[in-house]
Structure formats: structure tokens, C-alpha cells
């Protein structure tokens, strides 16, 4: 074997964050090793897995967890995450340990944060400030939009995040149900917008235009939607050596607090070791914490990068609630991609001193299956059964939401006493959702009721239980002060100057939008820092 055992850059994790860093550095001429705990999966296989799946609602199932690198499964529950605390079930998160990472299945919403999201403590007196501002990140947001291929409203719609360039692609034209919601809500005091998405509205980056497979989750069959595998391929073409099934269990640190090596178990369970000049931990907000905590030494008793005792703390997500009802008009959700619009009138404002910002989004998922299960449960057969399937498919409306949550050091991940097949500890999570979020959810419920009324809603079903939205943030939090934060403005560990954290774990506020574009922007920022460190032009 001609595997390099040493590289300029060792990237741990092959999702959108790690793949972007690897792709950028390899293209700049650096030697890059990328270690991925899980296996490679082919897109066609994932599609076939989905089509053969009895429970089509289970987005994890088409990606069977490997024995050596398990990820959470819930149908049935493999109990990989050990969940505790009053709101344990609200952190029953989904993520994938496979080459390409969790953006194999996502809504592809590619939002920028708002300027105030970076200064929650300074502006609103709650939460924490980041160590960077929106203006610092703006150029990287744009580069991320170009890399991922983001289509968005180039028609002057103000989404609150100032732009210097238009979106790389114009937004996809709205589906009929999204048009109707736009028409009705926008004259009734709501602000419903076409949302920016990493989904092609024209051929882009050698990938086709979205043709409305309505299957963004769990898998886009034609790669019209971006996923991290796009940059894995680019990284490999540029010379990155990717080792799959490499479960990193320890980072080695020297007497000068530099990271010198990563140790991993290979597919056969043998321990391997690679060395490097710089290490980029990009194994998501939970698995990255696991590696840091497992790497404890006599000097670093609480784990690496953890002199602040903040590693694993401040866990955040976007607690979600929902509503489903039957509209009094024909809407037919399910034509086009799964999500196209959002309601954004409570993303920012003075209210954030008291309650959480939020984003509501209309679900454009095809309703055939749920309509059919309901119609069958009514005992129908024959023409009446089909009539009811058509009625429910055409009239069902489902709206969901993301609520902000404040970083709380008591919401944390630790290493469980329970072990996985390799003998490595499982993540143990303690989680509680505070009144700041709950107050907002009460308001959201009222909005749901008003929206249902605007559409003459019947069979209105509120889902007020906070659902996880798999946006794992805060666990290696960014800040200016090394005493209360894990990484600095460059996402560099305060404690180890050759260790970078490329994960949504660095985010110091949750905001109210999907975090992937911000992960991508931060990862490109890290890549530039590393290029300069290696003497490559950034």
C-alpha cells in the first residue's frame, strides 16, 4: 500500500465542512489526508434502499449504520445516543457517519445568519457573542454559496443578511401551494419569502436542474441538490487521500500543546496512526467532542482543547413545533422540491430580549402515503377510498418551525459508560429547553391557528412537542475569552494552535435558520487561514 501516513493537513470527517477544507487545501497544493469513520455509499444504492423501505418517513434508514461507526437509528432505536434530562427526546438527533456526511439528506436550505445573530449578548442582553461579525463572514458566505450552488431570490427580496453579490442562481419558481401561501399570507401581515437553497435552478457545477423528485430527504436521486459528497469528489480529484472506515479515537498532543497525530481503528479493528502539521476536526458537533474528550492526558485531564471546561457544553438545536390541517381549497403539496418558502417575520427584533426568534416553513412534501394511511384507517375501499386519497393529498397542509435556543452550559454531551462495538463510549446528552424558547412556541402556536383559519382549516392538529431538527450547535463554542470558550475567531482551538474545529459546534448562537451555509462559510475561512499558514496563496 502506498498510503501516506503524514500530511500537511489531516482532516477528520468528510461531511460538507471537512470536504470543503480538504478540497480547498488540496487544490492549493497542500498534502491532505481525510479520515472518515463510516463507509462509502453510492447514490444509486441509497435510492434503492429508500424505495425498498417500508417506513418512508425514516430518513436515517436508507443509510444503515455501520457496526464500527454507528450513527443514531430510531426505527428501531439503536440507542446510540444516550439521552437524558427533561427534554431528552427533543435531542434524538439524526446524523450520518458515512463518506459525504449528513447533507446526503437535508432540506438544502442555505440561509445566512443575520448580523445581530453574532452579537446576541451585546444587542439583546441574552446568550453570547461570537468572536466574529457578519461583515467578517460575508465574503465567505458568498464563496460558500458559489461552492454549494445556491439559488435564491435575486428579485430584491430582503432576507435581512446584506449581500454584495446576487445569488449564483435565481430561485426556482414556486410550486402552486407555495404561490398560494405567498398570496394569502403576505396580505395578512406575514412575511413569506422564497428561501435560498443549495438546489440547482439551472445546470450548475456539472449537476442537473431540479426536476421535482420531491425526495430531498432522504436522497436526491439526481444530485440537483448539493450534498457534501460533491466536495469529497473534488477533494479526491485534487489529490486528497480519503481513508474510509477510519474511526479516530485519539489525538496525540506534544509537550508544546501541539497536536502531532491521530490514532484510529481501521475496518479490521487494527489501530493506525497518521501524523500532520495541522489538524481539522470536522466530525460534527457531537463526534468531534467525543474525540476531544477521549484524548485526555495527564495534563489535559478534561480532554483536549478543554481548559475552559466548555467542550461538550452549550448544546443547541432548533426546537421545532408543527401543525397539520386540511385547507378548504385544492393545493396539492408535493409538486417540486420538498421545501421552497419560509415565514420570516420573527427572525429578529427587540422581542429577542424575551423570547426566541423563529422561522416557519411550509412543507411541500407529497402527501399520498399519509393520505392513504388515513383513508384506509377510515375503512374505505373502492372509488370512495381513491376519492379520499385524492382529497387529502390535495388539501393537506403541514407547517413546521425552528426556534432559537440560548446556549446553556448545562445542556451538554459527555462520554457515556455505555460503549459501542469498538469499545468507544457513546455520546451521553443532557438537554432541557428553557422558557425563552417555550414563550416563542406559544406565539408560534397562535400563528399556526391564524394561518389555518386563513385557509379555512379543518382537522387542525397541533404538534407542540419540541422535535429535534438535527442542527447540532454550541458544543465547541467560539468566543474571545479562552476561559469560557473553546475556539477563537478563526475556529482555532484556544489551547492548541494547530487544531481547527470545522463544525457547527463552534456556533455561539443558534439563530432560527439551518446552519449548513454558516458551517460552509466558516470552513472556507479555516481553509484560507491554513493556506496562509502553509505559505499557499489564499
Amino acid at each position: 500500500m502506498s498510503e501516506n501516513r503524514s500530511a500537511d493537513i489531516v482532516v477528520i470527517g468528510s461531511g460538507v465542512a471537512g470536504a470543503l477544507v480538504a478540497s480547498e487545501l488540496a487544490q492549493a497544493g497542500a498534502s491532505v489526508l481525510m479520515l472518515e469513520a463510516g463507509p462509502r455509499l453510492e447514490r444509486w444504492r441509497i435510492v434503492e434502499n429508500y424505495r425498498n423501505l417500508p417506513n418512508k418517513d425514516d430518513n436515517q434508514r436508507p443509510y444503515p449504520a455501520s457496526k464500527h461507526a454507528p450513527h443514531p437509528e430510531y426505527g428501531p432505536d439503536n440507542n446510540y445516543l444516550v439521552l437524558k434530562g427533561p427534554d431528552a427526546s427533543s435531542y434524538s438527533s439524526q446524523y450520518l457517519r458515512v463518506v459525504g456526511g449528513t447533507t446526503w439528506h437535508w432540506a438544502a436550505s442555505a440561509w445566512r445568519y443575520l448580523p445581530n445573530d453574532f452579537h446576541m449578548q451585546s444587542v439583546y442582553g441574552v446568550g453570547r457573542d461570537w468572536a466574529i461579525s457578519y461583515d467578517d463572514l460575508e465574503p465567505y458566505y458568498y464563496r460558500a454559496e458559489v461552492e454549494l450552488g445556491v439559488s435564491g431570490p435575486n428579485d430584491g427580496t430582503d432576507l435581512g443578511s446584506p449581500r454584495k453579490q446576487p445569488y449564483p442562481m435565481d430561485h426556482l419558481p414556486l410550486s402552486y401551494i407555495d404561490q398560494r401561501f405567498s398570496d394569502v399570507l403576505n396580505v395578512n401581515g406575514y412575511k413569506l419569502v422564497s428561501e435560498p437553497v443549495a438546489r440547482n435552478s439551472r445546470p450548475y457545477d456539472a449537476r442537473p436542474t431540479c426536476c421535482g423528485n420531491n425526495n430531498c430527504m432522504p436522497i436526491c436521486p439526481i444530485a440537483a441538490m448539493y450534498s457534501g459528497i460533491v466536495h469529497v469528489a473534488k477533494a479526491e480529484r485534487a489529490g486528497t487521500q480519503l481513508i474510509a472506515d477510519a474511526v479516530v479515537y485519539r489525538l496525540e498532543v506534544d509537550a508544546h500543546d501541539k497536536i502531532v497525530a491521530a490514532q484510529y481503528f481501521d475496518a479490521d479493528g487494527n489501530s493506525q496512526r497518521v501524523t500532520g502539521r495541522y489538524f481539522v476536526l470536522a466530525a460534527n458537533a457531537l463526534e468531534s467532542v467525543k474525540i476531544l474528550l477521549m484524548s485526555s492526558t495527564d495534563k489535559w485531564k478534561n480532554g483536549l482543547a478543554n481548559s475552559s471546561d466548555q467542550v461538550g457544553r452549550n448544546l443547541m438545536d432548533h426546537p421545532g413545533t408543527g401543525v397539520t390541517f386540511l385547507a378548504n381549497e385544492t393545493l396539492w403539496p408535493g409538486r417540486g422540491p420538498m421545501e421552497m418558502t419560509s415565514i420570516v417575520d420573527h427572525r429578529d427584533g427587540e422581542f429577542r430580549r424575551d423570547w426566541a426568534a423563529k422561522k416557519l416553513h411550509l412543507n411541500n412534501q407529497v402527501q399520498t402515503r399519509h393520505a392513504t394511511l388515513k383513508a384506509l384507517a377510515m375503512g374505505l375501499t373502492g372509488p370512495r377510498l381513491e376519492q379520499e386519497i385524492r382529497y387529502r393529498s390535495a388539501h393537506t397542509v403541514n407547517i413546521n418551525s425552528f426556534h432559537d435556543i440560548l446556549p446553556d452550559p448545562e445542556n451538554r454531551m459527555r462520554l457515556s459508560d455505555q460503549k459501542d462495538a469498538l469499545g468507544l463510549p457513546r455520546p451521553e446528552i443532557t438537554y432541557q429547553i428553557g422558557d425563552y424558547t417555550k414563550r416563542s412556541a406559544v406565539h408560534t402556536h397562535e400563528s399556526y391557528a391564524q394561518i389555518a383559519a386563513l385557509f379555512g382549516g379543518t382537522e387542525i392538529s397541533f404538534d407542540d412537542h419540541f422535535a429535534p431538527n438535527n442542527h447540532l450547535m454550541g458544543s465547541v463554542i467560539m468566543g474571545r475569552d479562552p476561559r469560557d470558550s473553546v475556539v477563537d475567531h478563526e475556529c482555532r482551538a484556544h489551547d492548541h494552535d494547530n487544531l481547527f474545529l470545522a463544525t457547527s459546534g463552534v456556533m455561539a448562537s443558534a439563530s432560527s435558520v439551518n446552519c449548513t451555509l454558516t458551517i460552509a462559510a466558516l470552513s472556507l475561512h479555516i481553509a484560507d487561514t491554513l493556506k496562509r499558514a502553509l505559505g499557499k496563496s489564499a
Partner: protein
Amino acid sequence: MTQSSEPRVPAGGDGSPSLDKRRFLLQTGVAAGTLLGAGGWIAAIAASGNAVAATGPVAASVPVTGGGAPTAVPADTQFLTLSQTLTGRSPLDPILARRYLNALSAQDTNFGTQFIALLKFVALSPETGPEVLAATLDRQNSDLGKVLHRIVSAWYTGVVGEGANAQVIAYQGALMFVAVEDVVMPPSYCRAAPFYWTAKPPQVTAHSIPA
């Protein structure tokens, strides 16, 4: 839509049925009790589950006529005819019918008996539409009514069984997708050009009320 585009059932599914390998004929003109006996025989085969499927599951042949010369119709053909009556959709796919029958038989040891009883019930109710059939059976024999609904459910969802036992027999061939195919498609199968979704879809105004 051709059968070849159906999803492959993973190993441990219904295998590759070879129904013609073993045929068991029953004489016609037998009493109801014997019919149930035949059902019991199907059940006995079904009870051995995957082992049967692996060696080529069985098409029991059951009598349908009241007397006269011995005739026999393979069970999968009977099931196809019955399914067309129960769903009101014709013609249904004979290959799917065979696979639904095998899966239903494998998952419930009583299915063979119930299947025979359903055949008999339907034979006694000629020219009756699926809704009246179902309503009558739900009223007169709710246990057998459940079997009727299980068969209808299989055809519409493409899935037989529940929870860990759930088995996908068809995906895009499931009748629920056929019922809406003029407007929406089975997720992961795009059928139209980009932006088709901007057009106003057809109106649907009527709810169904249970019969």
C-alpha cells in the same frame, strides 16, 4: 409501468416465487368445510414461512364452481380476481398479485383459511361493488372484514405487514400512486420537466364519507 422497474426485494423477502413448480389440486364440489380444509393446508405451508418461499412457494388451487366437471384455478389467479373485485380496479398486475399473496400467506398462518372464506363470500355476492361488499362484510363478519381491508391496504400501500415485519412488495406500482398519478408522482421518480410544479393542479372538492 413494467414489472421490471419494480424495486428488488432484498434477500429474505419473498424470494423468487416459482408457483408452477408445485401444484395441488382440489376436487370441485366440496363442502365449505373442505374448503376451509384447503385453506388450512395453505396455512400449513405458509406457517413454514421463508423456508417455503425459498424453495418456491405454493399456489394452492381452490375450487370455484359449485359442481360438475373437476376444474381448478391456481390460488394466485383467484387472488388476482378477488383483488380486482375488492379494489374495483382492473386489470391488476398478476405478478404483484402473486407476490402479495405469498407475503400475506407468509405473515399470517390463518390467511389461507380466510382467503377461502372471502372467496366464498364474494362468490355469493355477485355484481356487488367493492364498497357494498366491504360494508356488508364489516357488518356481518368483522374478522373477515379485517382480512378484506388487509388485502386492500396491501395493494394501495405496496406494503404487507407492520413494524419489523413490514415488507415492501411494490413501490411506484402501489395503487395509492396510481390514484394520484395525474398530479403527483411517487417520490424519487420525476416524470416531468423542471418547473412543471408552477401550473395549477386539478381541483378536488369531494370528501369521502365512510359507507
